[in-house]
């Protein structure tokens, strides 16, 4: 946490210095007040001089106003620093996540990344707000009070100091003991929230399987554990604030007693003792503020660690120092002995994959679920890094290219269509910012999306909700295909995106694409043989191995796995169509 704060706050050195100066001046003013009070008691009250009392009062008034002005100023600068900190840290997490490769991203998970960039950031910001001024003010006032007290009376100050040391030790020990308890509590709360979320998303399944009682049990356990952890954590710190209060009060009592003795011995004056006690009070209130801060700290510490983990996560895929460039991309894609496996997994997802997708040709990839088709596409986009082997585009290893340059040349329609909230046209321009309206409309018509886009009130300018929830699965898929087409990239990847379309639309879309993209490289992942039959080359994957490549007729003769797929679809119907 401290580490992270330092990293950010150092950029606001100037503002921090202002905060410091104003807080210091304010503390000085505040510390001056008891001196004036002592003056009132000693020279005013004791001498019966009303004039001194009044003039000292005026002094105090001026000093107070000065203190207030300093506080307002420090308030502004600390607000500035906090605001900068909180917006900067969000932006940095966001930018970092943006640079994550798919495997980096998945190693965290979308849900937790979201929490880390939102809730955790907020959690830290709370501590910074409260901390910035208090953290400065408290030590300054505390130390100041101590020094002033010291000037008043050495022995009494030592007692105060001892009390302070003991208190600090108590604080340190409590924090150390309670921190893991708070972390534990946070974990349990997360678990409860997760279960709640599951109950909402899985309501149909839970009811269909009659598992309400099971879910209730599961929840009750988590709920009970959550309560226990929370109670345990609060019990661990419950003694804290009363104990601190008690210790300071007892210190004060001791000071009264010893002070009385010193008054007897004429070492101190009674007004000195009163001033001294004012400082003790001041010191005590700053300490109690410290304890409030410390209570909030464990939570923020946990959050800071989570945010830091994101910020400091190494990027598994980075651009080379001296990237090579692609000229006019022809679109030849080659896999050379490519292996891929998730770290720690028993089996590799892909192994020894070698094939060439010739420029300007259509290459299809077929194979069972889990045979590695999508992974292969992701590797080509360099969303994952190959474990072994090379992938080449126009005979250049994609590792030697800037990721941006590589992806510029690839159009992509993923298996799961993700759309952004906003205008349809904005969604279409995601891949090509400068696409004209005509180009967008052309792509939409090619993907057979115009038929449902056009009737909308604002046509391509109409707004869809986030994720396109107001569209059907097929409509989303067509928009996703159109988005890939707008790019008119030399290489276009279709990851099984035709299967959500009904047969007729599927055929129309593919016909349009084949016409318009005749001289471009296309790689199509598909399930229906009818989709891939006419491809220039078909790659057959089985369990991560390449078991056949060639044209439909050849594979139908030679490749056992392909024959099996053929048979399974012939089994369905010789026509192999769907409604």
């Amino acid at each position, binding site marked *: 946490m401290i580490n992270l704060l330092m990293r950010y706050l150092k950029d606001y050195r100037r503002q921090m210095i202002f905060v410091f100066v104003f807080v210091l001046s304010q503390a000085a003013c505040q510390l001056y007040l008891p001196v004036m009070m002592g003056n009132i*008691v000693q020279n005013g*009250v004791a001498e019966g001089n009303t004039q001194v*009392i009044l003039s000292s*009062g005026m002094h105090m008034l001026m000093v*107070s106003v000065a203190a*207030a002005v300093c*506080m*307002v100023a420090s*308030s502004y600068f600390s*607000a500035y620093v906090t605001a900068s900190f909180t917006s900067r840290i969000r932006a940095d997490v*966001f*930018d970092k996540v*943006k640079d*994550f490769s798919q495997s980096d991203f998945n190693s965290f*998970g*979308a*849900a937790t990344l979201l929490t880390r*960039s939102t809730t955790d950031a907020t959690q830290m910001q709370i501590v910074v*707000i409260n901390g910035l001024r208090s953290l400065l003010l408290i030590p300054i006032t505390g130390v100041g009070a101590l020094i002033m007290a010291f000037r008043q009376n050495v022995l009494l100050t030592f007692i105060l100091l001892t009390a302070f040391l003991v208190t600090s030790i108590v604080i340190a020990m409590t924090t150390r003991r309670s921190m893991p308890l708070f972390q534990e509590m946070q974990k349990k709360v997360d678990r409860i929230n997760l279960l709640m979320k599951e109950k*909402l998303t899985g*309501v149909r*399944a*839970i*009811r*269909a399987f*009659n598992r309400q009682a099971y879910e209730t049990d599961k929840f*009750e356990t988590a*709920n009970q554990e959550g*309560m226990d952890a*929370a109670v345990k954590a609060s019990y661990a710190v*419950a003694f804290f604030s009363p*104990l601190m209060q*008690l210790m300071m*009060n007892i210190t004060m*009592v001791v000071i009264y*007693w010893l002070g009385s*003795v010193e*008054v*007897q011995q004429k070492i101190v004056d*009674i007004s000195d003792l009163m001033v001294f006690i004012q400082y003790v009070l001041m010191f005590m209130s700053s300490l109690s503020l410290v304890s409030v801060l410390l209570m909030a700290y464990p939570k923020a510490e946990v959050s800071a660690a989570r945010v830091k983990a994101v910020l400091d996560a190494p990027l598994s895929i980075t651009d080379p120092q001296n990237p090579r460039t692609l000229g006019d991309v022809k679109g030849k894609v080659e896999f050379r002995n490519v292996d891929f496996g*998730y770290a720690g997994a*028993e*089996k590799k997802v892909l192994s020894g994959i070698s094939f060439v997708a010739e420029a300007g040709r259509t290459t299809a990839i077929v194979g*069972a679920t*889990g045979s590695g088709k999508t992974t292969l596409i992701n590797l080509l*986009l360099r*969303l994952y890094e190959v474990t072994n082997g090379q992938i080449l585009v126009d005979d250049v290893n994609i590792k030697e290219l800037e990721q941006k340059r590589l*992806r510029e040349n690839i159009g992509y329609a*993923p298996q799961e269509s993700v759309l952004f909230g906003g205008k349809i046209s904005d969604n279409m321009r*995601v891949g090509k*910012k400068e696409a004209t309206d005509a180009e967008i409309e052309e792509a939409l018509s090619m993907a057979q999306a115009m038929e449902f886009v056009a009737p909308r009130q604002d046509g391509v300018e109409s707004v869809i909700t986030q994720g396109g929830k107001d569209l059907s699965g097929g409509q989303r898929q067509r928009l996703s295909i159109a988005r890939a087409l707008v790019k008119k990239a030399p290489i276009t990847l279709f990851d099984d995106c035709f*299967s959500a379309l009904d047969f007729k639309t599927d055929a129309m879309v593919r016909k349009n694409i084949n016409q318009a993209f005749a001289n471009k490289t296309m790689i199509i992942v598909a399930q229906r043989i009818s989709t891939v039959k006419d491809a220039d080359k078909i790659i057959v994957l089985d*369990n991560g191995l390449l078991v056949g490549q060639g044209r439909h007729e050849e594979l139908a003769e030679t490749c056992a796995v392909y024959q099996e797929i053929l048979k*399974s679809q012939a*089994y*369905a*119907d010789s026509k192999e*169509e*769907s*409604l």
Partner: protein
Amino acid sequence: MKKTRKLTFKEVLMQLEKYLRNERHLLIMVGFSLVMSTIFTILAPIYTKNITNSLADSVAQGADVNFPFIGRQIIILVVLYFLSAGFTFYATRKTSFLSQLMIKRLREDIQDKLNRLPLNYLDSCERGDLLSRVTNDCSTLSGALEGNATQILVQGTTIIGIIVMMFVLSVKLSLIFLVVLPLSFLILQMITKKTQVLFRRQQRELGDLNGLIEEVYSGHLIVKSFNYEEEASDRFEDINKRFFTSYLRSRFFSGLTTPLMKLVNNLGYIAICVAGGIFVVKGSFTIGGIQAFLIYANDIASPIASISNNFNNIQAGAAAAERILDFLKNDEELPDHPIQELDSSNIEGNIEFAHVEFGYVPERMLFHDVSLKASPGQVMAVVGPSGAGKTTLVNLLMRFYEINSGVISLENKNIQELSRNNLRSAFGMVLQDTWLFDGTIAENIAYGKTGASREDVIRAAKKAQCHDFIKKLPLGYDTIIGGDFTSLSEGECQLLAIARTIIADPAVLILDEATSSVDTRTELLITKAMEEMMKGKTTFIIAHRLFTIKNADQIIFMMDGDIKEVGSHDELMAQDGLYANLYLSASDH
């Protein structure tokens, strides 16, 4: 969300009170301890005053310090402080316990409610909002209870107690000091008013920011593969800049509270010093009195500064509580009135719809006089263009929704006369959007059957063709899925859902596009496994493949939310209606 009248603060409290009803004695004890501890603290300055006065007298008279007297005062002080600390300790512990207990009970109610809410409510609700109610609002409430509720009690007692003590010490000085108090409240109010507006704006900007973050994260794949990173960053920067400005403003204004309060407090302090000093000179007051008064002025400052803040937090807590209570008030499913019971081990699978009318909203009826009959072992193919309302049929069969009129019966028993659990135990379904929960793969599969063993799980997984890909995962069957783990493909998730249904071994199957995202080769294997499972069982299958459709015993053809035609392929072809039309248009290609 049903609109309900806004609850007053008192009503919210009254409704929350029931969660702690059986802990009433503890509540009273906590209140008592808090008040006691505060009173003890407030009493202390009286004795310090005695000490100072005694010292001042001794000094003035040039006599020895009266140690026996001072000693007594000190002993009393120590006792007071110890008592106060003890009571505070007790109260703090018990408050944490009570607020946690209450939150726990509230959560129990919420989860119980979730079990009983009708699906039409849950389907029509914004999930994020609902989720925020059951999670964030609970946290807000518990924070408000634990931190702020007790604080208010302590601060209230302190303020009142100190004011009383001040009057006891000196009426004149108190009156002077009390001029300052209303000033504090006035300033607070002015600032709060201003900051509330600013805070609301800041929250809105933050909401926008979080919305964008969520969108970009969920579309990470697209952002990367379309080189959309910079665009996304620009959009982010844009909102972030606005957030920065509004945050700075709201922070600054709320930060004004402290200096202004401090200033007002200092005014009070100075007034006491000056006026007190003059009173002492005139002999109507003592130095010890000033001393005590200053301690009081010091002690009253922080409760005054923070009590309004605490009130705000309590208000936020109350608003959260209100949202939760509001949620808990929603109408529940009609309670079960089982008149009959099915022996779930002996269900043949007779299902009949007789003149069923249904609409999600009464104004728009979807099913008009639907009648159909499925005999044991028959395969019913549900067919129609997407959006034709095929899931409606499932919703009605499983009684997720209640029909408006007509009768649906299972084994000739009206399903409304059966308990829901009894009815649903007869069905097994593979849902369109597969739902996996946070847990291991094995647990997710075993979900279909209470007490399923690892062998059962593996057997089902093999039948559903997921054994192979499971072995590829780092921890095999013990890999945690759901929640954050997203590396399973849609098809793989669906296979797991199939395995789960296989393990449940129900009498009637509802296959809701089970195979739509599974490739054809796997589909064949699943079809075989399912055919095995389907033997002798009535099956409703939402079908795409012509083979399934043509070979089904009956086809239920749906369009525009309604069931249009029912019959075998040949019958419907002969009928030359909508189905025949669609079939021909698809196959003449």
